């Protein structure tokens, strides 16, 4: 039996969103274990930063996905990334971004994270609902 793929990126989000996204990635690709999941529940800003710093410095994580650009994980990630210019942070994560990321394992994680941004943007659209409001 093959070992599950190693964690290549962290998904840090509000509530259970990261777990939900990783679960969906796993259902679709079988590669959900490439994503380390983090929730902010019960954590203060210092703990969030320390968690990310430990994963960057201890585990060599080089790609981080967060949900809200103004969210506490994004703030914590920007602090934890100081002095680690090779770490990439992608905000506004969605399922399309993560699917692209796990399938692009030919790229280094940081490059893979950058590469999935366009796919993530393109996945958002509005269909129907009548004429667009002015």
């Amino acid at each position, binding site marked *: 039996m093959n070992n599950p793929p190693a964690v290549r990126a962290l998904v840090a989000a509000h509530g259970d969103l990261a777990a939900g996204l990783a679960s969906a990635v796993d259902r679709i690709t079988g590669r959900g274990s490439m994503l380390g999941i983090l929730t902010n529940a019960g954590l*203060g*800003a210092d703990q969030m930063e320390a968690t990310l710093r430990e994963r960057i410095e201890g585990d060599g994580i080089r790609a981080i996905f967060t949900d*809200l650009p*103004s969210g*506490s994980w994004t*703030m914590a990630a*920007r602090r934890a990334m100081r002095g680690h210019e090779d770490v990439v942070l992608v905000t506004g994560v969605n399922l399309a971004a993560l699917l692209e990321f796990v399938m692009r394992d030919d790229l280094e994680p940081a490059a893979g994270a950058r590469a999935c941004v366009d796919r993530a943007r393109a996945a958002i659209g509005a269909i129907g609902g009548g004429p667009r409001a002015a």
Partner: protein
Amino acid sequence: MPLELCRIDDRLIHGQVVLGWGQQMRLGYIVLVDDEVAESEWERELYRMGVPPEVDVIFETVKGAATRLAEFERDPRPGILLTGDVESMVRLVGMCTALREVNLGGIHHKNGRVQRLRYVFLSPEEERALRALEAQGVAVTARDVPGARPIPLSDVLAGKGE
């Protein structure tokens, strides 16, 4: 319009503040009161980036915020004042008797703190300081998001909050 919310939140500016409270209040400005952040251009820029362009962010030390409180209160836009810890809020209230309500929005686990709510952990010193605020006539309640019920400090400390 007075400051609508004076909040202790160790995450300072984040989703609950900007979106949860901010959008409902049609927030015009945030006063971020933190001595360290006020002195660091990097920190100020970090927090500024987390806020929509139509919302002003004013960075102040505790002393500076106390000096400018009347100015903030004259601002016609709805505003939020934030500190990252109990101690800063207590110092501020000590300099500004006009502040009569304090919101406990997020004080998370640290060594020496005991969990009181899902989002409020307090040390014995912090509990004493908050009780002292109430004794001065300041209403202290816990409420993380606008849709939640405000929980009086007495209930928070009695473990009857949730």
